[in-house]
């Protein structure tokens, strides 16, 4: 069938930098391990299946600098292997414990296989570094990896000091180049936070495009003639693609969104909460608090507390049915839109990567089936990456995109409200101080001072992560997020005073260099 339009999936893979060589007790570290097991490895495996089956597909993913830094950390790699070994041990015990219930027992074996398989892939295939896996698919041409702000700093609030936004972009690009050996063409603006003031810096570092929320395009000036079905370009030459509303709603709708299917795995029923305490104790938090283990035996079932047992095949059937529904809807959408448009519409579907697998457990499989269907079924569109679309259709309507984010209500409320507004003053002052000392000591040759200044840049960047503000708003793990802001601002401020007074404490510097071991090649002159 003749192709009338395009579909573009963009998965944003990001986790804040959580790295605690000083302790094994930070529960937050397990976010990375869960994401590797439930999202990153399943995505890689499904990409590989598609490649093996000769299915042509295109997908775009952000790999944010903090995530890359963690995936590259030997310490965290070792800890992830520990995590897997614990899970293999636990699921082995589960096979024994559940032997009287055939359906659950089958699931225990399934988890045992999965975690064993993860360990095999992680250690033997990826050599403990799954970045190589993603790079492999980028080099094959099926995956386009884009970059992000260095630590996911939220531009619309940071840009009070534009140099700090420029530094976020610069370090984001440097980190990308380090791991992928080329320059990124696209960026996922942290939280999709778009401000026109950042365009010049994005262009300076050779970035062509970004993903923005629907109204980033729809509320542009003048209103774009094709809405979100085509990209727009700012007067400064920076292209933005807006999220498609219709497809987004299909996945996210609270009434009939895909992840709510009754056959899908229930996120909340986890043996970490349900098994006998003494039995599960070695596998939950070190302080004995019950947490998710990732071993879950129930399906959503319906609006009931009486949950049925999860069935892998039923879940797959649902995923296949939904993939078919999604395909039909996009076909109709593109068929309709292309009637009115002078160029092929592009339907852009951006999501948090961790949606796929971590909490929509069947998400990676759904994506695999969808991509297969798009390739084999008679369908009127094909998959594309944003940069390919730009290359094919470089004539783009020029509009001023709207200041926007993808947070609740579309602007900055999530990162600026009465629960977290206290933080911004400190982030701004630290940013100004960074610029001040970077300029003051721009010509220094004192090695220790240079190291201290570079560490200050790391501390500033880590403090700027939008994640801390988000977590405070969200109300989970608030203590941890507040502590992170305090720690990084605290370390920064201490170093600032030491640098100014020429009394740098080497032991202290060394200590925080090990704790906040990110961006080894950073150069503080970024701020001068």
């Amino acid at each position, binding site marked *: 069938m003749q192709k009338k339009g395009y579909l573009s999936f963009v998965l944003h893979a990001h986790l804040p930098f959580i790295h605690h*060589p*000083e*302790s094994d*007790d930070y*529960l937050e570290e397990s*976010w990375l391990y869960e994401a590797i097991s439930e999202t990153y490895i399943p995505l890689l495996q499904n990409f*590989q*299946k598609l490649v093996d089956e000769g299915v042509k597909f295109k997908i775009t993913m952000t790999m944010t600098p903090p995530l890359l830094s963690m995936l590259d950390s030997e*310490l965290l790699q070792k800890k992830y292997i520990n995590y897997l070994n614990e899970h293999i041990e636990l699921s082995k015990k589960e096979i024994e414990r559940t032997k009287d219930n055939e359906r659950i027992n089958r699931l225990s074996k399934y988890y045992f296989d999965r975690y064993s398989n993860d360990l095999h892939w992680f250690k033997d*295939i990826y*050599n403990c570094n799954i970045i*190589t896996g993603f790079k*492999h698919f980028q*080099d094959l041409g099926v995956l386009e990896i884009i970059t992000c702000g260095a630590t996911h700093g939220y531009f*619309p609030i940071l840009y009070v000091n534009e140099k700090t936004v420029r530094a976020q972009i610069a370090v984001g690009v440097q980190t990308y180049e380090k791991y992928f050996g080329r320059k990124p063409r696209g960026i996922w603006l942290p939280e999709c936070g778009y401000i026109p003031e950042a365009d010049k810096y994005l262009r300076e570092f050779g970035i062509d495009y970004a993903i923005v*929320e*629907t109204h980033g395009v729809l*509320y542009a*000036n*003048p209103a774009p*003639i094709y*809405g979100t079905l085509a990209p727009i370009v700012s007067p400064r030459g920076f292209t933005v693609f807006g999220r498609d509303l*219709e497809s987004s*709603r299909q996945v996210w*709708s*609270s009434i009939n*969104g895909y992840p709510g299917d009754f056959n899908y795995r229930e996120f909340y029923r986890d043996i970490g909460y349900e098994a006998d305490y003494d039995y599960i104790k070695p596998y939950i938090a070190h*302080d004995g608090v019950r947490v998710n283990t990732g071993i879950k035996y129930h399906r959503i079932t319906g609006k009931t507390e009486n949950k049925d047992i999860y*069935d892998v*095949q039923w879940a797959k059937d649902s995923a296949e049915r939904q993939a078919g529904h999604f395909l039909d809807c996009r076909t109709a959408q593109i068929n309709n*839109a292309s009637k009115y448009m*002078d160029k092929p519409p592009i339907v852009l579907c951006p999501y*948090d990567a*961790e949606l796929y697998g*971590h*909490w929509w457990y069947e998400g990676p499989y759904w994506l695999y089936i969808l991509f297969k269907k798009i390739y084999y079924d008679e369908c009127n569109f094909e998959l594309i990456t944003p940069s390919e679309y730009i290359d094919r259709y470089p004539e783009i*309507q020029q509009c001023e995109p*709207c*200041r926007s984010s993808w947070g*609740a209500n*579309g602007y*900055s*409320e999530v990162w600026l409200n*009465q629960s977290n507004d*206290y933080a*911004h*003053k400190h982030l701004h002052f630290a940013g100004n101080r960074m610029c001040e000392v970077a300029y003051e000591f721009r010509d220094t040759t004192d090695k*220790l001072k240079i190291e201290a200044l570079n560490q200050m840049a790391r501390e500033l960047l880590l403090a700027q992560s939008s994640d801390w503000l*988000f*977590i405070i708003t*969200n109300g989970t793990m608030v203590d941890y997020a507040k502590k992170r802001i*305090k720690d990084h601002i*605290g*370390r920064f401020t201490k170093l600032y005073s030491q640098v100014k007074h020429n*009394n740098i*404490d*080497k*032991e202290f510097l*060394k*200590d925080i260099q090990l704790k906040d071991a990110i961006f080894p090649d950073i150069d503080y002159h970024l701020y001068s």
Partner: protein
Amino acid sequence: MAKENKEKKSSEEKNLKESVLETAKKVKTLIKKEASKKNDVDKTKKTTTKAKDDDKTEKEEKAAPKTTTAKKEKAATKETKSSSSTTKPRSTTAKKKTTTTKEDKKETKSTSSSKKSTTTKKTAASTKKASTKKEKSVQTQEFQNEYYDLPSYYNHTVVTILSQTPTNLFVYWEISEEDRNNYKKTYGENFFEVTKPILIVYNDTLNYSFEIDINDFANSWYIHLNDSKCKYHVELGRKPLPIANQQIPTNEDSTPKYQYIPYYVYVSSSNPMTMPNNKILYNFEQKTVTYRNVKTGQTTEKDIGQFKFITNFGVITLSELYKYLFPNDNIETDDFFSGNPSSGFTSSRSLSSRFN
């Protein structure tokens, strides 16, 4: 039905396992190939990082005998702590921020009691457990215990505004010691007691301004605006209270003890801030559409009459066109982004609850 499913499932699972193993092998070989390519590069990288490490250890050795610096540092932290506890807890508006003041107080209390206990309960409890789980530990190194409070005062005069929503501004401010003293020198020792702070909000696009009475217990404020999509700046100033200028001629030797305070005293001005747009900017008068070729940077104007939606369908207005392009979306309603996922790994909790 169920049995059939089971059988189907188990056979499929086997197939799946086999295929997974196969693909795994393939990936392995592919990646090994790549790895061998990259080996050279990696080697050079490793050697450079090693060199760096050597540098570090050298420095550390040199630094070792200097234990005095550590002491100094401790003293420094003590100083900062005592200063932070003597200064008043961050002033906050009584109405808006009672919760945060409570927190601040708690924090300052705990710091004064003991250093170690200030770390969160979680870590305190878990360190106990850690001893029983040493075998799992990957760490070998000793690390410093740290505790920080956010600086309470930067001693800078600044007014900063941020846009929260298209019609809500957030403003925070601080006045340096030096500036405070200068005001006292100029207007009298009791300048800050006989004046009150105000914010003047300037809409620089539509050229109007309005005042907001604030108070000295606050150091930040939210301001509601009527006009989105405009450029604003905010000025911090002070106005005399009714009692201010009554006290002027009170000195015995007839030299005025207090200075006359004018109607308005400027303190500082904020950064400019353009507020976001919050609606579709239908422009019915638009006759042309500007296109830019992103490869060449050239812009061209296209006559709107040539477009397919007009020539084939006679669609004339943009809002009409949007209705055709997005038949299943109500893009004119404000809450079209209420279902936004937002971001963040931890959000999965709150999100998935919507589906249960």
